[in-house]
């Protein structure tokens, strides 16, 4: 028996899980059209690689990862891409994002699937495969799974998250009950890729059937995995907290679990990894709970891109339903519209009514009762953070570890003054992030401006120096000439001379400038980019030439005596 640890705080909201676990997972029918966003994961959006009008097969890559933290997007079924455009997605901002619209042809025809034997693959190869298959964390954060497998230090414990602590959500529960074997196989793949010995599968004690199923599957597989029953306590499903409960190790603030030799995956992610590796199927569908104010709460296996409205229609929303929540009631997002598409991170959709989720009463002032601090799993002082966020005192908020807040909502759940604490934290966090960006932009602008000033100053100096030199030379020559032939000097000729000299000086300086400017921060660029830059720099030099010519005339020569 593994010794369990505990964390500070936590709450016991009513779980409401029974409703949706009465019937097995069923496959949702093919919808009339699918809307597949290109940003379904943490990090950069994928880049579309299909054309409008193109026919795609199920599992065909339609968006490829861009940058380090990114993942692939695939066609969830076979059909035709009818549009690639901005469409509304499941985001609290209600702002649109780039999506592909896919009209299924009803054949559900798979493209090439390539099952692999994970034992013959290195961790690197597995990571690449998972990235290609678009596997991301299905617990909610949608972090690319391949990233979580690459780690610089030894990871000795793999924690599998089957806690599913949020009320209402049962997709992991049902997945474990019905597909335990696949999950265990997936866990073995992840364990193999990580190279760990110990595997701990944490499941909250309010899911006895899932625990039994998983235990049976582990026993059958003869892998030395441990299925551990953990007490039901929200937010026990937060990765860092589950790790604490199972191993007693606290992941340091601002660090990753791998820094303390632990990695954590959701059960659904393990299952997706299994499908990807052993069946060659990219992530095109997931299990999602449809519950709340509906006639038939249950779990569906639905294609990514299915509009939520289709799922809700299957479960039949009750007439007083007036809004929908994606995710759980504690951390979920209110949908801007019910026809936005299901994404990889969507574990649940809750039909909500004012009877089910009464709108909060008007907030009262904080009375510093610290009930929030008592339930905060991160042991923050939410009342202080609220105070700072409310007064826009962002520096202080950061000082009080605002960014360690996991936005679990436990504080707002117990607040006697009904203050929307989490919204204040989110507000403060996004303000701070925006300010950081602004600051960086300002610093960059300052640097560029200062460099420009410096350059202009240098050009001026050099020009003046050259001019002075030429004039001196000219004067000497004239003096010499004067001694030889005592003819009066033609003033116009002199002026022309100087003008010519100035032009020469400008040209020389422009060349020098071009030479000086090229080597800056171009080391990390591709040859094409370098060529481009060179071309631009050459043009620039030319421009400066012209500019210098224009400016040279009204330059008073006494500046040369400056320094």
């Amino acid at each position, binding site marked *: 028996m593994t010794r369990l640890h505990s964390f500070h705080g936590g709450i016991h909201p009513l779980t409401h899980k029974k409703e949706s676990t009465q019937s097995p997972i069923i496959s949702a029918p093919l919808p009339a059209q699918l809307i597949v966003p290109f*940003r379904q994961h943490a990090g950069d959006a994928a880049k579309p690689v299909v054309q409008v009008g193109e026919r795609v097969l199920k599992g065909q890559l339609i968006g490829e990862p861009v940058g380090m933290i990114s993942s692939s997007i695939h066609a969830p079924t076979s059909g035709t891409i009818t549009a690639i455009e901005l469409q509304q997605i499941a*985001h*609290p*901002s209600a*702002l649109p*994002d780039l999506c592909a619209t896919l009209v299924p042809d009803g054949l559900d025809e798979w493209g090439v699937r390539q099952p692999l034997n994970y034992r013959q693959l290195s961790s690197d190869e597995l990571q690449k495969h998972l990235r290609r298959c678009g596997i991301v964390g299905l617990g909610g954060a949608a972090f690319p799974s391949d990233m979580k497998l690459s780690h610089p230090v030894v990871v000795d414990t793999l924690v599998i998250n089957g806690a599913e602590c949020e009320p209402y959500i049962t997709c992991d529960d049902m997945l474990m009950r019905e597909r335990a074997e696949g999950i265990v196989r997936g866990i073995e793949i992840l364990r193999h890729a990580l190279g760990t010995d110990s595997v701990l599968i944490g499941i909250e004690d309010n899911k006895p059937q899932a625990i039994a199923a998983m235990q049976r599957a582990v026993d059958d597989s003869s892998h030395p995995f441990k299925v551990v029953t953990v007490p039901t306590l929200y937010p026990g499903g937060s990765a860092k907290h589950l790790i604490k409960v199972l191993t007693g190790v606290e992941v340091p603030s601002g660090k990753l679990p791998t820094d303390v030799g632990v990695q954590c995956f959701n059960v659904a992610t393990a299952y997706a990894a299994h499908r990807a590796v052993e069946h060659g199927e990219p992530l095109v569908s997931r299990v999602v709970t449809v519950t709340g104010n509906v006639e038939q709460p249950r779990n569906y296996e639905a294609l990514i891109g299915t509009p939520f409205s289709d799922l809700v229609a299957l479960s039949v929303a009750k007439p007083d339903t007036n809004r929908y929540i994606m995710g759980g009631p504690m951390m979920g997002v209110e949908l801007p519209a019910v026809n936005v598409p299901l994404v990889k991170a969507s574990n649940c959709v809750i039909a909500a009514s004012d009877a089910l989720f009464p709108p909060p009463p*008007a*907030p009262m002032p904080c009375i510093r009762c610290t009930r929030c601090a008592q339930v905060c799993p991160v042991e923050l002082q939410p009342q202080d953070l609220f105070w700072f966020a409310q007064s826009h005192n962002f520096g202080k908020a950061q000082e009080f570890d605002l960014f360690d807040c996991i936005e679990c909502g436990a504080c707002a759940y117990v607040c006697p003054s009904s203050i*929307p604490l989490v*919204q*204040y934290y*989110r*507000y403060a*966090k*996004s*303000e701070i992030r*925006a300010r950081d960006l*602004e600051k960086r*932009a*300002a*610093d*960059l*602008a*300052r640097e*560029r*401006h*200062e*460099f*420009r*000033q410096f350059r202009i100053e240098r050009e001026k100096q050099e020009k003046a120096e050259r001019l002075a030199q030429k004039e001196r030379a000219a004067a000497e020559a004239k003096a010499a000439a004067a001694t030889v032939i005592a003819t009066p000097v033609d003033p116009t000729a002199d002026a022309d001379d100087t003008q010519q000299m100035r032009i020469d000086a400008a040209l020389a300086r422009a060349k020098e400038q071009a030479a000086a400017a090229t080597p800056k921060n171009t080391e990390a660029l591709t040859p094409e980019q370098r060529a481009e830059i060179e071309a*631009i720099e050459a*043009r*620039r030099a*030319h*421009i400066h030439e*012209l*500019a210098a010519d224009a400016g040279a005339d009204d330059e008073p020569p006494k500046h040369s005596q400056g320094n």
Partner: protein
Amino acid sequence: MITALWIMIALAALLGMILGYASIRFRVEGNPLAEKIDAVLPQTQCGQCGYPGCKPYAEAIAKGEADINLCPPGGEEGIHKLAELLGVEFKPFGENAQPKPKAVAFIDEQTCIGCTLCIQACPVDAISGAAKQMHTIIAAECTGCELCVPPCPVDCISMVPIEEQLTNWKWRYPVFKLRQTS
């Protein structure tokens, strides 16, 4: 009374010497305040304050020559920050210095004649292009200072306000009705 006089004289002499010494010994060169002010300014280098850039404006504030409410790109928040830094009262913007929404310059490529005048005007070298060739704004480096707009002989540069997108979307400050509707 004579004693009092002597005491005063002795004290004055002593303190005077100390002060005279200190005034030379501890003279401070340069102005660290200007640096701090410069760090608060938005670095658009737009010159709307009447100074040729953010640094000169910062120096002017530090010397007490310029007011703190002259920087529209910094917004009211910028004034608040300056007021806090300098320990003075907040001053609202004047009539002709109102902040505008953030924007980046955009060159209409059909109209641009490639005169390079805007390139010379850009304080942060954020315009690429060459003579008789079309110019482009490097949007990531554009500070939205609008200095390139007036020199353009064909009016092909416009300021496009930065719209809210998923990448720059922010959670709003929670707002509630204070009075309950009854």
